[in-house]
C-alpha cells in the first residue's frame, strides 16, 4: 500500500534545486511513497533563531506544522503526523522550532495566541528527513528496487552540519554518521570515507565571502579525492552550491585542481533505480556528472537536454 506523507519542499527545491525535488519524488514513487506537498507552505526562515529573546522567527516554521494538522483534517493524509523535508536546512529549522515549542509550553501558547487566525498548533507533528524514512523502511527495500549496477562508482558521502547538529536534531551519530553510506551501499555503489564529511562548507558565508567558502570547498573536495572518490553526495542545496559551483573559484586559484561532481543522494538513487534521466536533472549540476557516468557506462551516449 502506498505510504502518503506530508512533504515540505522549501524555496530552493522549487528554483535552484529542482533536480533534487524531481529525483526525490520519482524515487519515492518507486518505493511506494507518495510525498504530498504541504498546501500553502511558507518559507521556514532557513536559519534557526538562536537568541533567547527572539520568538517571532519560530512563527514561520510553526505555521507550516499547522498545515500538517490541516492535511489530516482535510483527509489529504490519514493519521499521519510526520512531515518530510528534503533540504537539510529546512529540516533543521522546522525540527528545532518544533522542539522549542514542545519543550516550552509558554512559547507554544505565545505563538498560538499571536497567530490567532490559525488553528492552534497541538505539538504532535514530527519533522523527519527522507533519509530517515528510507532507513526506517529498511535499506533492503531500497536494494530490491535497484535495476542498474552502479558498482563502478566510488562515492564519498557528505553530511555537512544541518542533518547532524545540534545533537537534539541529529538523524544519526553526530561524530560518526553512516546513514548516507549505508544507503549508497544498498544501491550497490562503493563508498569511501571523507574525513571532511561533517565539516561546514561555510554556509551563507558564500554571500559575504565566497573566497573563504571556496577554501573550504577545496579542503572538502580534496578530502574526497584523496579517499578515492569519483563523486560526492549531499542532501543540502546550500552545501551543493558551495561544493559544486564554488569549484569554479577553486580552479581559478589552483589550476591543478580536478573538478568533482557533487550530486543529491536522490539523483544517485534515481540512476540505480533505472528512472528516466529527465527526472535526474543533471543539466542543473554545475560540474556535469554525465561525462563520468558515460565513461562508467551508466548513461547513454546522448542524454536528455544536452
Amino acid at each position, binding site marked *: 500500500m502506498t505510504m502518503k506523507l506530508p512533504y515540505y519542499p522549501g524555496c530552493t527545491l522549487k*528554483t*535552484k534545486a529542482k533536480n533534487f525535488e524531481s529525483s526525490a519524488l520519482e524515487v519515492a514513487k518507486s518505493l511506494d511513497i507518495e510525498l504530498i506537498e504541504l498546501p500553502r507552505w511558507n518559507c521556514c526562515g532557513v536559519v534557526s533563531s538562536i537568541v533567547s*529573546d527572539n520568538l517571532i522567527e519560530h512563527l514561520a516554521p510553526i505555521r507550516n506544522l499547522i498545515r500538517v494538522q490541516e492535511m489530516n483534517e482535510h483527509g489529504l493524509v490519514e493519521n499521519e503526523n510526520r512531515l518530510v523535508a528534503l533540504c537539510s536546512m529546512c529540516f533543521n529549522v522546522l525540527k528545532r522550532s518544533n522542539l522549542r515549542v514542545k519543550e516550552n509550553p509558554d512559547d507554544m501558547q505565545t505563538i498560538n495566541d499571536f497567530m490567532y487566525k490559525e488553528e492552534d498548533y497541538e505539538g504532535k507533528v514530527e519533522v523527519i528527513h527522507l533519509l530517515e524514512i528510507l532507513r526506517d523502511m529498511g535499506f533492503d527495500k531500497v536494494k530490491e528496487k535497484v535495476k542498474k549496477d552502479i558498482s563502478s562508482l566510488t562515492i564519498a558521502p557528505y553530511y555537512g552540519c544541518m542533518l547532524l547538529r*545540534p545533537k537534539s536534531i541529529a538523524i544519526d551519530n553526530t561524530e560518526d554518521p553512516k546513514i548516507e553510506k549505508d544507503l549508497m551501499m544498498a544501491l550497490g555503489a562503493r563508498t569511501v570515507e571523507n574525513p571532511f564529511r561533517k*565539516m561546514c562548507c561555510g*554556509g*551563507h558565508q558564500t*554571500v559575504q565571502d565566497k573566497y573563504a567558502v571556496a577554501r573550504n570547498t577545496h579542503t572538502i573536495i580534496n578530502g574526497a579525492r584523496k579517499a578515492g572518490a569519483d563523486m560526492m553526495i549531499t542532501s543540502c542545496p546550500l552545501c551543493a552550491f558551495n561544493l559544486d559551483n564554488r569549484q569554479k573559484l577553486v580552479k581559478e586559484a589552483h589550476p591543478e585542481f580536478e573538478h568533482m561532481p557533487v550530486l543529491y543522494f536522490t539523483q544517485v538513487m534515481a540512476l540505480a533505480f533505472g528512472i528516466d534521466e529527465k527526472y535526474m536533472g543533471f543539466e542543473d549540476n554545475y560540474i556535469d556528472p554525465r561525462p563520468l557516468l558515460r565513461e562508467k557506462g551508466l548513461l547513454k551516449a546522448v542524454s536528455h537536454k544536452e
Partner: protein
Amino acid sequence: MSKIVKITKEAAEFLNKIEELSGEKITSCIQCGICSSSCPMVNEMDLMPSQIMSMTILGQKEEILESKSIWICASCFNCKVRCPRELDLAKVAEALRQVVLRTATDKININDIPEDEIMELPQIAIVAACRRLTN
C-alpha cells in the same frame, strides 16, 4: 608577556548582556580550546572562538564587536557538540552579532552584490545571510 585587564562596571554589564541574549553561562568556559580546534572557519578569523569566550568574560566589548570573527561564524554547531561544558558558542556569536545589528547596523548590503552573482546563488544562501548579517 602578561596584560592587565581591569573589569569595569561596563565590562560586567557586557558579559551579563551576552549571557542573557545567548542563554549560555559563558563564565563556565574552561578554555580547553576544543571549539577553536573544531572550527571550520578558524583560519579566516582574527579572534579564535576560545578567545572570544575569554574576552567576553573579561568584557572586552570593543575588541570583540570590531572583530571579523563574529561575522564569519556560520553557526555549524561543531563547537557546541564538542564543548565539554556543553556551551553553545554559535548562540554566543549570534548574541554578539545582535548587539551590533540592533543598533540599526547591517554587516552586508545585499544590493552591493552584482546581479549575476545574486542570480546564481540559491535562495537559502541569500535568506540565511540576510538573517544572520542584517538587522
